[in-house]
């Protein structure tokens, strides 16, 4: 099932349960998978048209009135385009708004460089009070949606729109502030977020053949990072690799380095190396920016050598 379909289904349940849950679009409801909900929830869904900054501040105004707004757009327009509205109307004003950015990083594929946010987490991560969550698969997203809605305060949700391979088991329990151990290992800690999670599990099998026992931890919440889990794993293995569909500046890698600042532990990164995106399909883009299983394996080996 597509992630956006899961998201829309969960939103519908939340709106059904609580008339104060409202959703605002900026002419991308069709892309977000929520367009069909407009008929069902005419008093809870509002399309602001192509005016993202207005959407963000209207959401803040609705929040000040006791509503629980969700706003949605493509990741670059939900973050860098409305950074000041997120900072002031939402975060500084302490308003309870959920911000959904779809098609993060290279997943914008055929929309190309203009729509490809390599920096969205970096943009919002430096705003005080912001929580950043990036789902991995359908089960995690389903478990997360009610938790995100119940959390009072701003959250940026980095949503891959298409189907994702299953990583989490049935009955998975989600804790917004707790990273998830996916594979125990002793030689290296791989911290991963979003669509790269399954790749890391694949890389771990290859690494094992090479005699490297990698620990895989899904850091689904990039801010605040689960320091306890990250530090415990890094201290145990003594080497770190971060893997993300984002610029290596400002996102998961930065968050993990900040966490490890007082530790003498080498940390390498697989991510977008401070460059803009370009048009193409995912297999091409993965190769172009180095988001491949092969690159994860190679960089993991480099990290091990630094121990």
């Amino acid at each position, binding site marked *: 099932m597509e992630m956006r379909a899961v998201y829309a289904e969960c939103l519908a349940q939340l709106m059904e349960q609580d*008339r104060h849950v*409202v959703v605002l679009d900026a002419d991308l409801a069709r892309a977000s998978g929520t367009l069909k909900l407009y008929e069902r929830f005419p*008093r809870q869904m*509002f399309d*602001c*048209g192509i*005016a993202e*900054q*207005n959407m*963000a*501040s*209207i*959401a*803040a*105004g*609705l*929040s*000040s*009135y*006791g*509503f629980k707004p969700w706003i949605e757009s493509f990741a670059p327009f939900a973050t860098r385009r409305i950074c*000041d*509205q997120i*900072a*002031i*109307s939402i975060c*500084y*004003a*302490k308003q309870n708004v959920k911000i959904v950015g779809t098609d993060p990083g290279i997943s914008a594929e055929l929309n190309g460089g203009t729509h490809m946010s390599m920096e969205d987490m970096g943009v919002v991560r430096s705003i005080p009070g912001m929580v950043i969550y990036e789902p991995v698969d359908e089960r995690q997203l389903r478990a997360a949606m009610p938790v995100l809605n119940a959390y009072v305060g701003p959250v940026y949700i980095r949503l891959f729109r298409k189907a994702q391979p299953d990583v989490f088991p049935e009955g998975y329990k989600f804790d917004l502030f707790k990273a998830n151990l996916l594979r125990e290992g002793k030689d290296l800690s791989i911290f991963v977020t979003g669509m790269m999670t399954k790749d890391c599990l694949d890389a771990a099998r290859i690494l094992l053949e090479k005699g490297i026992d990698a620990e895989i931890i899904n850091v689904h919440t990039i801010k605040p990072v689960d320091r306890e889990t990250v530090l415990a794993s890094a201290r145990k293995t003594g080497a770190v690799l971060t893997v993300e569909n984002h610029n290596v500046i400002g996102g998961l890698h930065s968050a993990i380095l900040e966490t490890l600042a007082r530790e003498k532990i080498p940390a390498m990164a697989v991510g977008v190396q401070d460059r803009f995106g370009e048009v193409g399909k995912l297999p091409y883009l993965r190769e172009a920016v180095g988001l491949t299983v092969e690159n994860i394996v190679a960089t993991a080996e480099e990290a091990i050598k630094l121990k």
Partner: protein
Amino acid sequence: MDCDLKAISRDIRCDTLAAIGHLGVGHLGGSLSLAELLAVLYFKEMHIDPKNPKMPGRDRLICSKGHAGPAIYAALANRGYFEKELLMTLNQGGTRLPSHCDSNLTVGIDMTTGSLGQGFSCAVGAALGSKLEEDGATIYTIIGDGETQEGQIWEAAMFAAAKKLDNLIAFTDRNKLQLDGPVSQVNDISPLAEKWAAFGWNVIDVEDGNDVDQVEAAVAHAKLGRDSERPTMVILNTRKGCGVPWIEELGAANHNTNITEEQALAAIAAIRGEG
């Protein structure tokens, strides 16, 4: 409330001067231009209760030109939201009265504002919220004429008209000056009334926005638009720095300017003398 709105305007103006004068610097011009409007809203039109500042269904005022905080605080203190002594803490470290309005710090402030254009959208959001709650509230909002240059103002203007938010009454503090000079020279916004009308709003043009009778009549007129399915814009032709001749004469330089305590006290005495 039945009270002398002229006297209250004077009190708001004098308390604004006292607070900024005590500090020595502040947003004098655009605060002083609003004294009459704030008297009419807080003391006559708004359904509010200072003893229950978060009262559900209350009318709200979102001052999108957040730098008019000092005038709003003077109005709130006079209305009984807090003691007047608090005004003397304006902009001091740790104060509850910051330069720009902050709903998390100041009782009676309905929304944090200061980054221009945003508060107006927030007011539109609150007006939508009030419609959804069917609580009958009126949402008031104030923008500056310089602020009108922000694109977000027009995004919100379009949305408010499209959603028929006739519970929204907005005011433009048309003092014709912004930080860098006359609005007409920096980036002209005229014809202003025609722009708002073209965006689908009721428009009321008030010749003298510092004449309390004219403001009172305009707000009463604006409230008649409650069932018009259109939001209303009241353009108040005001004087930046109104009430203190030397501040008015500074022109655009009075946006954020120095004032000594002595100058403030002299200005207050002159205003009181006129009264």
